[in-house]
């Protein structure tokens, strides 16, 4: 197991009101597995991904990455964990608006312990001709490919994606998913994608259904499809 969670809970105290985002989630992800966490808005998907990625600490429960207790890490250790172990891809790309495509990827290269060269990764995601373009000069799909390149350049084992196609049209979405699947299959990277789109689950090895902060179903996909096979 590369990643596991045991009774993970997260609540937010908003003055007199307590909002329970996760109410005791158990999960396990194998190395090289492609897992989709599916659920409606407000089901706790992003919170779970944030906790897995060391972006915030759980209120209760345990999370392990390669045997390391992520839930016990302090701020500094979590930073190191994100730096060495995790690549993130966000729905809205989150690129630095005043850095070029190459420079955005280089940001990852500069801090990772064993990175891949920025231009090589950008070539792999099909942006060899766009290295010097600023985000505002790129289409949404291209921006998301830069964001994926930025996550991949770290050469980390775990790739966490938060609605990676949420802001894209179908055609571009298929290209982006194809890219993610390729890295999962060919390079053996573990891929966790959260989405509300049921079609994406058909590409994954396993789908976890999240509802009201609980995993309500854990479904193994014996025959994952390729992105172009899915009817969008």
């Amino acid at each position, binding site marked *: 197991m590369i990643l596991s969670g045991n009774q993970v809970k997260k609540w937010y105290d908003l003055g007199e009101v307590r909002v329970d985002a996760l109410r005791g989630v158990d999960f396990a992800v194998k190395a090289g597995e492609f897992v989709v966490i599916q659920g409606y808005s407000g089901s706790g998907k*992003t*919170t779970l991904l*944030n906790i897995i*990625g060391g*972006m*915030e*600490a759980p209120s209760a429960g345990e999370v392990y990455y390669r045997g390391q207790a992520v839930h016990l890490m302090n*701020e*500094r250790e979590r*930073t*190191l*964990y*994100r*730096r*060495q172990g*995790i690549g*993130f891809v*966000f729905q*809205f*790309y*989150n690129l*630095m*608006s*005043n*850095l070029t495509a190459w*420079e955005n990827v*280089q*940001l*990852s290269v*500069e*801090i*990772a312990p064993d990175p891949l060269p920025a231009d090589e990764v950008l070539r792999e995601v099909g942006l060899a001709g766009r290295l010097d373009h600023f985000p*505002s000069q790129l289409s949404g799909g291209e921006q998301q490919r830069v964001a994926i390149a*930025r996550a991949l350049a*770290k050469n980390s084992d775990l790739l966490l994606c938060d609605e990676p196609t949420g802001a894209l049209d179908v055609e571009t979405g298929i290209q982006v998913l194809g890219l993610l699947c390729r890295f999962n299959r060919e390079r053996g990277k573990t891929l966790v994608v959260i989405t509300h789109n049921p079609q994406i689950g058909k590409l994954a090895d396993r789908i976890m259904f999240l509802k009201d902060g609980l995993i309500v179903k854990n479904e193994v996909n014996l025959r994952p499809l390729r992105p172009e096979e899915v009817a969008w």
Partner: protein
Amino acid sequence: MLNRKLWRDIRENRLAYFSAVLVIAIGLMLFVGLQLVIQNLDMAISTYYQEQVLADLFVEVQVGREETAGRLRGIPEVKAVETYLQQRVQMDTGEPDRLGQILLRSWEPTNRLNRVKLVKGRFPAAGQAEVLFTPFFLQANHLEIGDVFPVVVGGKKETLTVVGAFISPEYVYEIDVGGLAPNPRNFGVGIVDREKLAVLTGHQGQFNRLALTFRDQGAAVKVRTLVQDYLADTTVTGIYFQKDHPSVSLLDQELAGLRKTATTLPLFFLLVAGFILYNMLSRLVANQRGQIGILKAMGYPDRQIFRHYLHYATFTGLAGGILGGLGGLALAEPLTALYTMYFQVPGLVARWQLWPLVIGLLLALGFTWTAGWQGVRTVLRLSPAEALRPEPPPAGNRLWLEKAGFLWAKLQTGLRMALRNVFRNRRRSLFTLLGIFFAYVLITTAFYLQDAVDYLLDFTYNYEQNYDGRVIFQGTVDAAVAGRFIGNLLPVETAEPVGEVGAVISRGPVHVQTGITALPQAGRLYQVYDEKGQRVLPARHGLVLSARLAQKLGVTAGDWVYVQPFLAEAKGFTLPVTGVVAKYLGMGAYTELTAFGTQLPGGKPLATGVVFKLRPEAEMSQLLTAVRDSPLVLAVSDLREDERHIRELMSKQSQMMGILVLFAFISGLSIVYNSSTISFYERRREFASLRVLGMTAKEVFRLQVTELVLLTVVAVALGVPGSYFFARLIAVSMASDLYSIPLFIAPASFGLAMAATLLFVTLAAAGIWRKVRDLSLIAVLREWD
């Protein structure tokens, strides 16, 4: 890579950064420039005192014999003693419009203390009627070496030949006792051979001034007491340490004032710069909340992100520091040159030194780092997940104003939106408000300095001293006789005797050497007023003190003080303080002439001069003709000419004030521009949405400008008491024995500051209009951060 981001961010907001850099540069320019001037003055003056061996103790006596001086040399703690002669004489230039005086000082080739420095010509030959004057005096009186200068000594006309020019550490600032600014047409110091002066004054074998140096500075008080004991059979008319020497103390106070200015003024600008930076950096960081979130998510440690944002502050601090430092070096030269116009000090040249630049840079960096740290720390505290979530919108509760339904309903929709925006974004509104407030106060304060000088001169020359001139007697004259003598002259409308006596006034352990002015109680020409502008009558048995003197003695009305006049055979006595009055030029005490006379030897009211007002049709020259040959009269000072002279000197100062107003204006513009630009940047998505909804660019612009106008009105209203507050701070910190600064801001200054504020609010609004007009809706709505 983060450095590239830094440069591009700075480039995108270049005007905002430029304005912050400019304000820091102004603060540091003042700091470095003034510190260098202080350094130059300090160095030149202390070297001068040392080289010319300025004495440690000065004693003035009526007449002393050389044997007494010999006894003083026997005091073990005394290193050297020298005696001198001095005599005030009348100028006899034959010009009808002036009757000035010269203080003749004796000189001997053997003088080792208080040495005069020859700058031109040669020293007077033994026994010859030759004289040295200062270069300022020679120039003002169009004198050259070889010219003759006629004087009247004890009623006898004498002619002195000018043989050179001198300067002396005792006359760095060549003014008479009680004078304010050098007026070389009416007063000068002449250096004459001692033997010749003794013959002229009939003081052979005698002295009336002596100076001592100490072996050990720690024994100063002991030596003074011993000297007083040794001189018990002689009338001491003045005894003071080097620090209390009129020229030394005046220079010290000038330097002290300059030191305060050199600290407070730049600090004020640096505080404003710090405010701009804090505002700018904290909002820049808040705007980059998402970017910080992603950097954190990628695994960038807080330390590195913090360092990155601190670089913005470092850049601003360094750029402002270097620019200001170089500006300060450039400013030092003209500022030092300004002092050479007043002070006769050799070696007073602009020298460059590195340390003010280094301290200035450290100060700038300290300020900018603090501002940067304050700005960054709140966002850094957030977890990456929180930072990536957009900031929650401000609470949308009803305003208190909305509860007053009737009033609220009357307001236009635009105004309602503006009011809601102001109150819902309290922090942003507060920053803009404070920005305009600071800008307004800064400009009013700069104008205040000019107002205060004008008020001070008006008060002194039109209210306190409401006369045309003053006749100064040789020694003292019976007050009644003096009043009648001048009052009966044809050109004189009114005349009143005035008695001026040097004295030490004490309260407990505090002793202050000052002057007591005795005035007739019903006098109209020389009146004193309290802080509220109410006339205070000189008390028959009591003293009215100037506010500064009262403060130094730590007394108020009703307290008693001990007075020891510097007059032959005068004994000390106690008097109650009956009032405290405003006096902006110098400090001193007032009392009633007749009653004071009874306390002095002889028991009669004595006058040292008479103040007078001329008839409307009369000329000063007519009066001068009438008194010129009187053996009683030493000189006549023309108050209106003094006023003109001092105003002329002040006009040079007002160029400095002009620069200050300009600096204040630039800072004000920077603050408002900066604040409104950042406001626009923060709200560009909101504006784009309004444009998408169908509002015209003009309507969107009006919305933001309404807010700006609302905030400007409040800021200016608060700026009025704010300006008084800062003016008071300046008045308190600048007060010295030489002058106190009145707390007076002319209504016109408030008006001018308001006009300036409106101007830069308009300029800022014009900048916003350009941005609103050119707002790319698509680009803004696509941006994520």
